[in-house]
């Protein structure tokens, strides 16, 4: 079961990515630069 803690940690890392991405994308100020990069502008 040595891999179980590692698997859970990887799941936590993924959860972090999902949370951060969704928070940033939820901002009404989030814009796309047309290159597939979600640039954040406060304008």
């Amino acid at each position, binding site marked *: *079961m*040595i*891999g*179980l*803690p*590692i698997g*859970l*940690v990887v799941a*936590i*890392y993924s*959860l*972090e990515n999902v*949370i*951060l991405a969704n*928070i*940033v994308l*939820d*901002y*009404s*100020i989030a814009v796309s*630069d047309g*290159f597939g*990069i979600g*640039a*954040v*502008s*406060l*304008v």
Partner: protein
Amino acid sequence: MQQGCIRTGALKLPAALCVAAMALAATSSLWVPPVAGAFVNDAETIANALTYVHIMLVANSFLIVTYTLNGVFEGAGITWPILLGGLASYGVVEFPLLFIVYIWFPGQPDLLWLVVALAAAVGMLITLALFRLGAWSTAQKDDALHYTL
């Protein structure tokens, strides 16, 4: 493996990476704007990119230490300290603070990155504390053979 000890040579690469990350952070105002400017023209977006890179390079310095020690744990066949550090830094510190920032300080991405850096620092301190306890080193002598993938 001696209890609580790792070869000093194994620390040279992560130490060098920490120094490199700090050097990149210290000089980020020189190289980030041209790089970000190659993709976007908006000055405020470039300023946000500079802040992000600056904070994340510092956070990565903490993560380098954490991941190095995680490698020691893995090499010893003990992985629960890695899970404990992850649960504490992400579950107790980062996720609740991200929720607070999202609810009460909307539209401030800089705060998000600061929360990530803070969680990385907490995770590093917890991992260092677990490493210094040394319990993982003695435990593996008896238990490592019983672990299975």
